[in-house]
Structure formats: C-alpha cells, structure tokens
C-alpha cells in the first residue's frame, strides 16, 4: 500500500505541472497584449518597455513560463487589477468561503443520497426504486442556476424566511456555520448546490448496494435468518468505500464548479471572484483562481484515491 501511495503521489506531479502549463497558456490565448491589460491606456512607450522587462515579456515563452512558475510556487500570483491586492490573498480568502458551501452541499447530498440509494437498491424495480431513480435523474438534469432563482423566489421573496443573496454583515472573516444569523445565508446556496451530487451519489449507492446484495454471502445471511435491516447493514459496509470515493470526487467538482451558484447568490467564494474578474477582464485574478482551483481539484482527487486504498483493503493496485 505504501508503495502504491508513493507511486500515486509521484504520478500527480506531472499532472500538476501540466495544469500550470495550461493555466499559463490560457493567458497567452487571450486576445490582446497582456501588458496593455496591466497599464492604463495612456501609458507611455517607455513605461510599457519597462514593464515588459520587469515581467519578463521580452524573453522566449518557455523562459517566461518558468519565471511565472517560480513566482507562483513562492505564492506570488500577481496583483489584482481591480483591488490592487495580492491575487493569492484574494483567492485563498474566497476559497475558504467556497469550501463552506461545497462541504455543506456534499454532506447534505451524501446523507440523503445514501438513504435513498439503499432503499432503491433493496426494492429494485419496485415503485420506491422508480421514485428514487426519478429524483436522481431530475437532480442531474435541473439547471441549478435556475433552481437557485426559483428557491430565491419561494423562500426569500414569497415566504421571506431566508436571505436571498450575500453572506450577511459578518462577512467572510468571522463567518461561523454554527451561528444561525450567519448560517442562514448559506442555506439556499447549499440546497441548490447539493442537487447534482445528490443524483450522482444516489445512482452510485443504488448500483453498489444492489451489486453487494447480489452476492452469495447475502444469500447466506438470509439463510441463517437475518432480518432485512441486518442484511442491509452488511451490504452497506461493503458498498460504502465506493460511494465515499464518488462523494470525494463530487466535492472536487463542486469546489471547482461553484461559479454559477456563487454568481446567483453573490456568495463571496472563488466562483464569484472569477465571474467578477471575467466582467472586469482582471486577468491575474482569473488566472490565479483557475490555477488554485485546479490544483485543489487535483489534490482532492489524490487524497480520495489514497483514502480509498487505506480504507478498502480489497483494492489491490498494480
């Protein structure tokens, strides 16, 4: 297992490097001279030439990439064009807010999906299964940015029980999920966000539990007189590692793909930061956010893989 863990960690290094290449290349693809976007339009030619030298834009592109990588690795992702604050600081602040709603959404989705999926697997082909499967399909088919708007109409406009947008007066620095006055701002984003992972985790649970129930040892358990709940307990323990893996991967997708939900609820996370950066063409912030998010995604996947091997000894990897 340790051999596998070391190998898996080593294998993710070239992927992480590839991710940085893509992030760097994105800016090269962007129309316009990157220097122009750093300067006010009335900058003199000398100033442009000076900045070009400072940022290393007069060197060949591979050298530029290495210089950029060196700075990025030391935590310098440049300065935001809008706020003049270090990009790293902005992105990391936002990332913690994104984690609040993503972790909440994945936990909510997991608890509901695991129960629904187990019920569906036990009653496969029966009405209970049909309903649960239907919920799963709806979950992955609903445009969640639209559902967010609908939830705002119902809970914020019509019923007035939950705030529509934002993060409350406390802001991100002292946000606590345990204080209702602040936590209520997270309720609608979490609900909206949990729908897609709900569908996907439910499908996985259903097929995993059904597969275990199909084993000979389950027949044996039934034969020796265990009731349905006791049989299910065995099935669940066997299916759990597979479901937890999918849950971990879903967390990665939520953290990386939070932009739509955060834009609707103006939740000050990385996604909201990116959509602001796109509107104002704040390239350093956009690039920094993409880099941090994709590296977070890679590390979440790595951790899920390692945990899975640790938890489930049946998995023997070559």
């Amino acid at each position, binding site marked *: 297992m340790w051999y596998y863990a070391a190998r898996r960690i080593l294998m993710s290094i070239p992927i992480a490097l590839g991710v940085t290449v893509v992030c760097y290349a994105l800016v090269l693809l962007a129309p316009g001279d990157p220097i122009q976007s750093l300067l006010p339009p009335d900058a003199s030619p000398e100033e442009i030439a000076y900045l070009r030298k400072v940022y290393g834009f007069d060197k060949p592109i591979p050298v530029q990439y290495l210089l950029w990588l060196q700075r990025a690795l030391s935590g310098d992702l440049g300065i935001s064009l809008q706020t003049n604050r270090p990009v790293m600081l902005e992105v990391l602040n936002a990332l913690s807010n994104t984690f609040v709603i993503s972790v909440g959404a994945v936990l909510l989705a997991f608890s509901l999906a695991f129960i629904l999926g187990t019920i569906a697997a036990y009653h496969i082909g029966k009405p209970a299964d049909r309903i649960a499967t239907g919920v799963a399909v709806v979950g992955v088919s609903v*445009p969640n940015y*639209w559902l967010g708007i609908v939830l705002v109409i119902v809970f914020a406009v019509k019923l007035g029980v939950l705030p529509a947008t934002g993060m409350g007066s406390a802001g991100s620095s002292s946000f606590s999920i345990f204080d209702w006055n602040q936590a209520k701002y997270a309720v609608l984003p979490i609900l909206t966000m949990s729908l897609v992972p709900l569908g996907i985790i439910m499908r996985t649970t259903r097929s995993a539990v059904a597969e275990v129930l199909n084993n000979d040892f389950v027949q044996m358990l039934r034969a020796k007189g265990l009731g349905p709940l006791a049989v299910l307990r065995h099935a669940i323990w066997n299916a759990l590692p597979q479901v937890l893996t999918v849950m971990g991967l879903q967390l990665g997708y939520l953290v990386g793909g939070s932009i739509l939900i955060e834009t609707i609820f103006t939740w000050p996370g990385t996604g909201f930061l*990116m959509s602001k950066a796109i509107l104002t063409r704040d390239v350093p912030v956009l690039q920094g956010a993409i880099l941090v998010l*994709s590296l977070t995604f890679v590390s979440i996947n790595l951790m899920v893989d390692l945990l899975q091997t640790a938890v489930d000894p049946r998995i023997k990897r070559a």
Partner: protein
Amino acid sequence: MTDVSAFRLPLFRRKREAREVRGYWASVANRLRYDYVTLFFLAIILTIVLLSIFAPLLAPFDPTKTSMAYRMKPMGFRNFILGTDELGRDMLSRLLWGGRTSLMMGLVPVAAATVIGGLLGVIAGFRGGWVNSAIMRTMDVFYAFPSVLLAVAISGTLGGGSKNGMIALTLVFIPSICRIAESATTQVRSLDFVEAARASGASTLSIIWHHILGNVLGPVFIFASSMISVSILLGSGLSFLGLGVEPPTPDWGLMLSTLRAGIYVQPLVCALPGVAIFITSLSFNLVSDGLRQAMDVKA
C-alpha cells in the same frame, strides 16, 4: 458500475421456440419498442427539435423586436401567449428561437468532441506505446480540471460569443470521450480476430475500419449521448454568465440571466427559460439511459 438489471434475467429465461435469429440492431430496436419511458422522451426531443427548426415559421412575433409599452406582461396578455420579457419582446417567439441556439450549444460541441476525441482515442489505443502515452497523458492534464472550471476558463480568456463557447465545451468533452475510445480500442486490439485479420494481410486502416470501429462506436456513442444534457446545461450556464451567446440573440441561458431582474414582477414568466432547459436536458438524459440499456453497453 455493474448492470443492475442483470440479476432479473432468470425471470425472462423461459423455454422458447427456436426461431429466426435477430441481429444486434434488430434486438436493440425490439427492446426500445417496449421501453415506453424512452419512447415518450424521444418524442419530446423530436418535438423540441422540430419546434426549433421551424421557429421562423411558428414564432408569432419577431424575437428581437422590443416594445417599451409591453414590458414584463403576464402570460396571456393580448397576443403574447407566454407574456413578454424585460424589453417587451414576446416570450413564446424568443423561446422558440432560443431553442435553436441552445440545442446548437448542446449538440455541436458533443459531435465535434466525439469525432476528435474518438479519433485520438482510437489512434492512442491502436498504436499503443509512446503515442498512447503522449495522447493519454495530455488528456490526463485536461481531466485534472473540473468541467465547469475548464469551460469558464477557456471561454473567459478567449472572450464571450457562441463560437468561443462551443470551442470551450468541445475541449471539455474531448478527454473523457478519448478515454472511452482508448480503453475500448485497447481491449479489442489484442483479440484473436484482429490478429487473424492482420495475419491475412489486412491493412491497418482496414482493420480499424472493419474490426475496431464497430466495437468502439457503441460505448463512445452512448457516452456522448449522455454528454448532450451536460453540454446543454453547461452551454446555457456559460450564456448565463455572459460568456456564451451574445444579446440580443435569443438563448435560454441568456434569457434566464437577463430576466433575473424581473423575478419580483413576473416570477412565472421569468422561470420559463429554465423550464425549457430542464425539460430538454431531462429528455436527453432519459433517452441516453434508455439507449444504454437497449444497447446493453456497460457504463
């Protein structure tokens, strides 16, 4: 994931008279014929496609004609069956026309990615060795991005517009399709009938054409069909963020975003584009599931 329906099979294994042997596609069609859910949603998809194709004939008004006097009117106001939007444009006409762009955003990237990703995957799987490593390791890098992030990143840096949006979505779908094609090709490549074909002197191209493609297209096609709904959702999402279709072109995602200001005035009218996206993506999802079962392809 294993096929759950497998353990219900013994029920159907009754004694049967010997009869005419059905071909693969005939048996697929036969299974589909009794799958009413899939047939129903297939009919819905066909309706949506036809409505979009004939939008110029069906739409009662010009979808871009604004009117200050008739802004945000409820459903059934005068001749506006589904009401009007924030600039007084007829919702029904805009929804019909919007179906065209939204379906394009769903279908074109998936089709393009299927061709490109499928080709890359077959080449990688068939050649093996360093070609395989080069292609698949590159795909791994793109796989390391969450799909929404990659789409937003590419179209965000390229700048908005439906063309850039489609390019972004195509790039998002290529890696996963390539992986499916690669693993299917690798599985088939070392089988005896491919060896036999090579021994009897068949050229590489003819082996790929006659022996590989038939075994690869099924899984790729099924996977691609499940991506259509993702593509519609992502494409509308990009337009919603202002990164896809540009106004005043009607598009469901863009309509959702511009109508957001009106949710306090006419919540029902403002919810319509979302309903359209939902029904379309739901139908594609369910039809794809039905096809997967009928074609008996393992996920």
